[in-house]
Every structure is written in structure tokens, then in C-alpha cells.
């Protein structure tokens, strides 16, 4: 379409104005090197040794300094990190990884295949998750940039397990020296974009830029792709109290606070100069039924429970609506594994629940549910109690600390039958492969309430062995259908992940308690 002279004049004038007076944001939004990002975290990492701990505070800080062979992109798809490429043999028992060239450890040493071999051999020796890697029969290093994992049998669990945080690669000789001299790894010599500068246990931890770091060439996508350390460093300060974290952000003592309480979100949104992001996390809450005694053995009772709970209301009552009502073990953020079956919810139908309870002759007998005494779990307990009471279910809550509650819920690991009626799981951990949910939570060998269904077992065993992605996906959709119909457990929903930060911080992407990172983040002037 031809422009009239008048329109052309206006266009030229506008362009001239823009050049003469550029919007302020133009200058500010360009990534800028320098400054220290100050982050308030809720917990001191138990250790910086990548191989001996699985706790979230440790993972969150360690992700900034250590890297794995492969990692996850924004769709939770496995992507290259220290490994550039990989291939598996036709029978799936030999996996060959080509390492990225030019990678340097914080100590200046080049990454070699021997470091990968050392790291995995150490994992197999000291990691609490070492049995996840028990399929590894041998690790070969044909040359300095090639690593071969020989497995005892094909395993779908192997490849995704290489992206887990506890498989971060450390330099062999300096790590071995630290272990020999101090019995542990206080300063991991890894390859990440930041490195440890100083650590005052219980107070703060300072990282500085790893100057020898060369970002990957791919575009950044969640944990995958280019990682650029714009900031000179990151200082993690440990502030356990959520209110004090908030005050510290308000006062400008820190740029970023993690684990904001749901009730603080509105207050923060009213403050100027602060962004707050509240998204559903990958962690879900669930209740297990006991199949060795009591009402949980009756399918009608389990169905009535599922119908009597209003999941949206629970999300509102516990998380002020910042979480996500969800009856599937696969959260929405793990989109590649989700099917229509995973989006299906138990309907809220109080009348039907009452009919089912009447059918089995339930007359308000107490249903025991031990829960850990924490603010969130307490709210969950009270809200569920009120909802179930409407259907006539008499939920009795017993409070204890988390360690005692977990001990009670997982009594079958001590070869004792579960003593409770309902087993409350406060939060699951992020697991990338559905096997780590559907098998490890509901298979006969694993369900904490001793649920056993040979049909379900066969389904998840088949899915564990099936090499084709689409077929596995279909099998897990079937497993989800069975979980919804049989109800060995009810997934209630996903807790929120809420973080807040100064508007001075640019490039922040809030994703998950396990995925927060401060590369590609800069401090605007």
C-alpha cells in the first residue's frame, strides 16, 4: 500500500523523535556486566559436595556452579550441556557421549572423559541416589572427549537420570585430593559459569564469575543453552524467616528472595520496584490410602473421598490460588509427557460421595491422617477436614514433626504395615521421567499403603522397558487412567513456586524450586 505524503511525513518525524529521544528502557534492557546479585534463600545448603546430597537448598545454589552431562530445556526435554552429542547402541546397553571441547574447570583444568568417569564412580560409591545408577556396569573412556556407559540391560531410567543435579561433574584429581585431606568436598571444582569465592556456613555464600567459562552456542532455554554470567558474582544470604526475607528485599539489602509465602504476594504486588512471580511448581501433594486395614480398602470409600474434595477450593484455601489443582503426578510444566488423561480431574460431587459412603455402611468412623506440623500442611489438613465433613467423613488429624511423620508414612520400608488410614505426602520432588512417579509411587513394590494391582504393575513395568517415546507416553496415560479409577492415591495439586525480585534485576526467569538460576541475569543501572 502506497503512503500518502502526509503519512510519510508523520512517519519520518516519529523516527527522528525516537532517534533524538530514545525510550529509557532501550538503554536499560541491554545486558550489562558487573555488580553482585544478592539473593536471600531460606536455607543453608547442607553441603556443596554435588554427589552426597539431594536437598533443595543445596541444589539451588550448586546449579550456579556445577553442570551435568545433559540438562533440561523449557519443555523439560533433555538437551546438551557438558556432552555435545550422544548415541545409544541398538540394544540400548551402550551409551556414547561426546564431550564438549574447550570446557574448563574452575581450577583451570580442561574437562576430560576421565573426570566424567571419576564423577560417576564417586556417585556410585557415595550418593544417596546411587541405586538409580546401578544399571551402569562399566564406564569406558576411549579418548579424552568420549565417555561410554555400558549398562547391564536397557533402561529408560538411565538417560534422564544423567540430567539430575547429583550427577554434576567435578574435576578428578583436585576432588580426590580434597576428599583425601578433609573427608569431603567443601569447594567443588566444577565447570559452571560461577565459582565458589567464600563460604561462611550458616550465613552467606559468595560466588564469583568463572572467567574461563565459554557459554554453549545454542539459545538459552531454561537450564539448557547459553549461560552467560553478566554479574561479577552472586551472594546467597540464608534467611530462614519469610518476613525477614521480605523486609530485606524492601530495604534493598537483597535483590531477590525465594520462597515467598502465598499470603505475601498481594502485599508485594502493591510495592513499587518489585516484581513477584507466582507459578505452580512441579511438586505435588497427595494422600495415599491404606490397603492393609480400614476403609481405604474399599474402592467406594476412596471414590467418595476423591469426589468430596474440592481441589480448586483447596488451592485457594492453602495457597491463595497461587498453586494448581491437579490430579496427575505429571505437572503442566512437564508438557511433553502430559496427555488429555493427565488433565482429567475428579469431579466435585458431594451427593454421589454420600451415596457411595452409605452403600458401604460408613457411619463417620474416624479416619486417621498424620501430618507434619507446618503452616502449609496444617492449612491443608484443616481445609480437607472441613470439606470431607460435608460428606460425612470424619477426618482425624494427628500432628507431628516432619521426620516422625515420614517415618510413620514409610513404615513399609521397615517391613511394617502402615499404621495410618490416610498417608499425607506434603510435597514430591521434581522427577523428569514418569517412571519416577508412576512406578516409584504406585507399583506393588513401592506404594506406601501396600496397594497391589498386577494389571497396573504390568503396565508400568512395560513402560519402564519400552524404548519408543510415543508408546511410553501412551502407557503412562493408561497408568494415569488406572490411578484415577482405582484411586490408590489422590494427587491434590501442585504447590506454588513464588519468588520476588527487585526490578533492577533483568533477565530473571522463575521456573521451579529446582531450576532457578542467575546466569543470563544482569543488574540494570
Amino acid at each position, binding site marked *: 500500500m502506497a503512503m500518502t505524503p502526509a503519512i510519510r511525513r508523520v512517519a519520518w518525524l516519529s523516527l527522528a523523535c525516537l532517534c533524538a529521544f530514545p525510550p529509557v528502557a532501550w538503554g536499560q534492557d541491554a545486558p550489562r556486566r558487573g555488580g553482585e546479585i544478592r539473593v536471600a534463600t531460606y536455607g543453608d545448603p547442607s553441603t556443596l559436595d554435588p554427589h552426597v546430597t539431594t536437598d533443595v537448598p543445596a541444589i539451588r545454589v550448586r546449579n550456579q556452579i556445577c553442570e551435568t552431562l545433559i540438562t533440561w530445556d523449557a519443555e523439560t526435554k533433555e538437551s546438551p550441556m557438558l556432552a555435545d552429542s550422544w548415541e545409544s547402541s541398538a540394544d540400548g546397553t551402550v551409551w556414547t557421549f561426546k564431550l564438549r571441547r574447550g570446557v574448563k574447570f574452575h581450577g583451570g583444568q580442561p574437562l576430560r572423559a576421565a573426570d566424567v568417569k571419576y564423577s560417576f564412580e564417586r556417585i556410585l560409591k557415595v550418593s544417596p541416589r546411587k541405586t538409580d545408577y546401578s544399571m551402569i556396569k562399566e564406564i569406558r573412556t576411549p579418548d579424552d572427549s568420549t565417555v561410554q556407559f555400558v549398562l547391564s540391560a536397557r533402561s529408560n531410567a538411565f538417560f534422564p537420570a544423567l540430567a539430575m543435579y547429583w550427577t554434576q561433574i567435578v574435576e578428578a584429581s583436585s576432588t580426590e585430593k580434597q576428599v583425601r585431606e578433609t573427608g569431603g568436598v567443601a569447594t567443588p571444582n566444577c565447570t559452571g559459569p560461577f565459582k565458589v569465592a567464600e563460604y561462611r556456613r550458616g550465613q552467606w555464600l559468595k560466588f564469583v564469575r568463572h572467567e574461563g567459562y565459554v557459554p554453549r552456542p545454542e539459545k538459552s532455554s531454561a537450564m539448557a543453552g547459553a549461560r552467560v554470567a553478566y554479574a561479577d558474582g552472586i551472594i546467597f544470604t540464608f534467611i530462614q524467616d519469610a518476613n525477614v526475607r521480605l523486609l530485606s528485599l524492601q530495604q534493598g539489602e537483597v535483590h531477590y528472595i525465594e520462597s515467598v509465602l502465598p499470603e505475601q504476594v498481594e502485599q508485594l504486588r502493591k510495592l513499587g520496584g518489585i516484581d513477584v512471580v507466582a507459578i505452580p511448581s512441579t511438586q505435588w501433594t497427595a494422600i495415599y490410602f491404606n490397603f492393609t486395614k480400614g476403609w481405604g480398602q474399599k474402592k467406594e470409600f476412596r471414590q467418595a473421598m476423591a469426589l468430596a474434595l474440592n481441589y480448586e477450593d483447596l488451592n485457594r484455601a492453602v495457597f491463595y490460588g497461587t498453586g494448581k489443582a491437579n490430579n496427575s503426578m505429571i505437572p503442566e510444566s512437564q508438557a511433553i509427557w502430559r496427555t488429555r488423561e493427565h488433565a482429567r480431574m475428579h469431579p466435585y460431587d458431594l451427593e454421589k460421595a454420600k451415596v457411595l459412603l452409605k452403600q458401604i455402611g460408613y457411619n463417620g468412623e474416624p479416619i486417621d491422617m498424620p501430618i507434619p506440623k507446618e503452616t502449609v500442611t496444617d492449612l491443608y489438613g484443616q481445609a480437607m477436614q472441613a470439606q470431607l465433613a460435608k460428606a460425612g467423613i470424619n477426618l482425624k488429624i494427628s500432628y507431628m514433626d516432619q*521426620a516422625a511423620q515420614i517415618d510413620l508414612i514409610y513404615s513399609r520400608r521397615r517391613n511394617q504395615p502402615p499404621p495410618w488410614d490416610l498417608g499425607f505426602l506434603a510435597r514430591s520432588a521434581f522427577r523428569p521421567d514418569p517412571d519416577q512417579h508412576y512406578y516409584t509411587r504406585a507399583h506393588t513394590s513401592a506404594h506406601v499403603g501396600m496397594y497391589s494391582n498386577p494389571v497396573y504393575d504390568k503396565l508400568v513395568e512395560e513402560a519402564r522397558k519400552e524404548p519408543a517415546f510415543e508408546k511410553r507416553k501412551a502407557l503412562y496415560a493408561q497408568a494415569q487412567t488406572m490411578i484415577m479409577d482405582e484411586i490408590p492415591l489422590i494427587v491434590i495439586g501442585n504447590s506454588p513456586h513464588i519468588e520476588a525480585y527487585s526490578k533492577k534485576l533483568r533477565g530473571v526467569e522463575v521456573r521451579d524450586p529446582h531450576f532457578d538460576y542467575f546466569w543470563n541475569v544482569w543488574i540494570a543501572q
Partner: protein
Amino acid sequence: MRRVVALVPIWWVVASIVFVLVRLVPGDPVLLIAGTDASAEQVREIRSSLGLDLPVHEQYVRWFGRLLRGDMGRSLFSREPVARDLLDRVPVSLQLALSATFVSVLIAIPAGVLAAARRNALSEAAFAAVTMTGICVPSFVMGLLLMLLLSVYAGLFPIRGYEPLSQGVIPWARYMALPAVAYGLIQAAGVARMTRSTLLEVLGEDFIRTARAKGLAGWVVLYKHALRNALIPVVTLIGLNVGVLFTGAVVIETLFGLPGLGAFLVTGILKRDYPIVQGAILFISTFLVLVNLGVDLLYRGIDPRLRRA
């Protein structure tokens, strides 16, 4: 010296009781380490690698043997030596306890003396109101109030954190002032009430009447004769307070981000980190015995009759 030697059986008894008690409490550290999705095989592996699959008496012999060699073991979670963590944290708790005690004594003794010496309806009511408030207000409320007023609004102190004394007295004091005042004010209320009541009791004694009859000045009677006699229970209370302040500052330590012993011990208990709980309680019990010893020695300084006894 005899008192110090008497510490040895106390140590042994405390160590043994703690060892048994932490294992009797429901809760399994292995399940916390393994995570809720761990398999039975993983749980078994971890238990075995930590030596927790051995019979309790064997665990006890191993642990006690190491303790006698000065090795308190390593945390089950961080695998760091417990002794090193304790050495890092004890000075912080000690500094907080002593600073808070200093604040409480500085306020409580003059306030208690004043309340006992100048008795009238108004001052008694005011004293009762202030001290009861001090006793009733929880330490985290006092801490948050001070934080809001003096840090957030007035900007006089940092909100939280800790600087060791090695970085200089002024930076140290800037971080320590608010927790010490918050904690000290609460302790001051009890000490002030105790000072007032014991002083009133002593002021009614015959020897005070005699002293007054001798024509001694009022302040001499009050400070030289009455207060000195009234101090014994007050010193006992302060001594007990130091112990409580040293070990029970969890809330204040958490609120102000002080890397002290209280928060460390509570985290250890919540995680069932046996070596940390055992090590910390052993250390605390030793400290308390030593404080009691110190208080006994102070009695002798205050009351010469005890020296002769």
C-alpha cells in the same frame, strides 16, 4: 579441681542418655536423606553406608570410642565434622548470650533497686506493668518490633546478619546490638522483679534497721548492706539465664540470621542428625555445668560467709 573432675561422670551420663534418647524419638534420618520416592534398596544402602544398620550397642561403642579420641563424628547430611561446626557456632551464641546478659543486668539491677527503694502506688504499678510486658512479650515479637523501628524505619542497624569480632568491634556491635537488646530486654524483666523482691525482703531484716539506727546514709544501707545480701538469688537467676540464653536463642538467631548453636541444634533435631544432636547437647551440658561452677564461685565473692563455710 574436684568440681572439674566431677564433670567426667556427668559427661558420660549425659552422652549416653542423649545417644539413647535421639534414637528413641520417632523419625529416621535415612528416610529424610533418601527422599520420599526412594526404593527400599536405596534406603537399605544409605542406612548401611552410615553405619545405622548396626545394633545400637555397637553404634554406641563405636561412637563413644571416637568421642574419647576427640572425634564427635560427621553430620549425616553434610558429612562435615560436627566439632568444626560447633567451633564455628559456639562463639556466636556465647557472644549473644553475654551481650544479652549485659543488657539485661544493665537495665534490671538499677530498675529493681529503684523500684524497691522508691515505693509508691504509681511506681509499683508502672514497674509491674513494664516487667510483666517484658515477661509476656515473645522474643520474636520484640525482635521484629526492634527490627521494624530501628532497622527498617530508622535505618540505624542492618536488618540481619553477623560480622565476627575479628572484623572489628563496631561492625560486630552493629549486627549484635538488636538481637542482644531484644533478648536482653526480655530477660531483664525477670531479673528486675527478682532484684526488687529480694531487696524488699532484705530491707525488712533486723541488720538493716541496725544499720539505719547507726545513722548510716540511706544509699550506704541500700547498696552496701542490703543489695549485696539480696544479690545471691539474683546472681543465680542471671547464671541460669546465661545458660538459657546460650542454648535457647533459636528464635532470635533465626530472626536475625545469627549462625549460632540454638538454630544449629534445632535443625539437627528436626533432621534427626544424630551426631549433631549428640555433639551439641554434650557441649551445652558441659557449658551449663561450668556456668554453675562459675556462679558458685561468684557466691563466695559476694557473701564472705560462704568462703568460710
